């Protein structure tokens, strides 16, 4: 196992360890994620068809309507939400969503260092993201 630790800025405190789901594209929660099953429904998105449930969701930043914040809340209430959110640059829609949904969130992280399938330990009290990589892969 190889391990790297990235340091970012705390947006919402919390801790978790889960599998990473990484996108190179921005995500709009309104119209981009199905609030009934947590799947990415935006066509032409690199995560199209993937489910955000229980993942450490990593993407550059959010975009789109502020209603997206409520979608994140709704997902979390139905236990369909991500375990944590890691952004390159936090934007107001995702920040407000993470606060009301109480999802740990860190930004200012170089998400290119994280690959889908990596196990990630998020310490969103200290802004630390520990990426555990399987060297064979």
């Amino acid at each position, binding site marked *: 196992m190889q391990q790297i630790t990235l340091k970012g800025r705390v*947006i*919402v405190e919390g801790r978790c360890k889960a599998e990473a789901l990484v996108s190179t594209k921005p995500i709009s929660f309104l119209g981009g994620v199905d*609030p009934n099953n947590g799947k990415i429904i935006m066509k032409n998105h690199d995560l199209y068809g993937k489910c955000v449930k229980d993942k450490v969701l990593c993407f550059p930043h959010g975009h789109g*309507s*502020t*209603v997206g*914040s*409520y*979608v994140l*809340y*709704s997902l979390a*209430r139905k236990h369909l939400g991500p375990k944590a959110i890691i952004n390159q640059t*936090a934007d*107001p*829609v995702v*920040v*407000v969503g993470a*606060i*009301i949904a109480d999802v740990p969130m860190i930004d200012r992280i170089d998400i290119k260092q994280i690959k889908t399938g990596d196990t990630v330990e998020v310490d969103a009290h200290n802004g630390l993201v520990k990426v555990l990589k399987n060297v064979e892969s």
Partner: protein
Amino acid sequence: MYLTKEEERIYDGEHGWANQICMRILVRLGELFNATKLIPVSSAHVAGVSYKTLGDAPAEFLRALANANGKAKVKTTLNPQSFDQEYLSRKLPKDIREKQSNIIEQFRKMGLTTSLTCTPYYLERPKPGSHLAWAESSAVVYANSVLNAWTNREGGPSALAAAIIGKTADYGMHRTENRQPNVLVDVRNLLQNEAEFGALGIYLGKILEDKIPTIQGPNNVSETKLKQLGAALATTGMVNMFYYNTQLEREETEKISVEAKDLKRTVESLSTTEDVKVDLIFIGCPHCSLNEIKQIAWLMDGKKVRSGTRFWVCTSRYVKEKSEKYVKRIKNSGGHVLTDMCTIVSWTEILGIKTIMTNSAKTAYYAPTLNKAETVFAPLKQCLKTALEG
């Protein structure tokens, strides 16, 4: 960010979950934009009201907030919902009506005024220099540019948080240094009717990014035309304010030239069809002022709306009550004056409306996607010519 003792107590949850979550929203957004403190606001305006655009997700959060005793501390108005109470609501399924009413009920519990309008400034004009926390991009641009009140472009949830705390974070448009014009747009010989002002907004919004333009155009322009310009600027751009016919202090400002052909092309792009048989002619995006209602009544002058054509004028309940005799004339001509609703977030598809003619550039821009409708974009006089017999 500096917080007072009282603000810290709210942040730590001593005033309950609703206040805590709202304070966290304000503080974290403030930190994101390098605010150093919170400042009081004189009013808030909350968007995100139509069940059609919200869906089911937000209702859960709004109910949780209302049940946890979230209460607005300052006067807070609400954006339009997805139907009016008299005309459209009767044509809609019960399920839709109930879900919409439930959303409104949660806002009511939190002490928000159910004004259901995108033009809260016609109900009460904010004082120049006052700080606001308004969502609804067209109202934000109007407040900053025409009324000289100071507000950021809040999102639905952050405006609600500001309403409940009575404050907002001190950044962006709340700071003098961020309200200076930095690009000059000369359109003195170009603009005539309100539709062209709207088209200019659509055109500029795409190229200005977050710059603040000072627009040099014709003199003695009505607030209605500036309302159309601002609504359109916010539709395609990040623009939060513009100056109109004010002198620039610095000479070296960047200049943008807009040619007649740019404007013409934009006007044309806002129509998706040349079909003259339209299902709906719609005036009132943003909601009509008393003056606009008067003008429409005047122009209709005893004529009748063609059969097979719907003619809608959208406004607030407040303005409708103030303009009763003109409303009556519009009704007698076969038009509908609808309140509480916004056509682009209403259920036009359910009514079988496939073509919408409007003088609003914002509506013309959104209707193809939000209403799945073809659009015809034209000034008021031409809209009325199409609507009326003879």
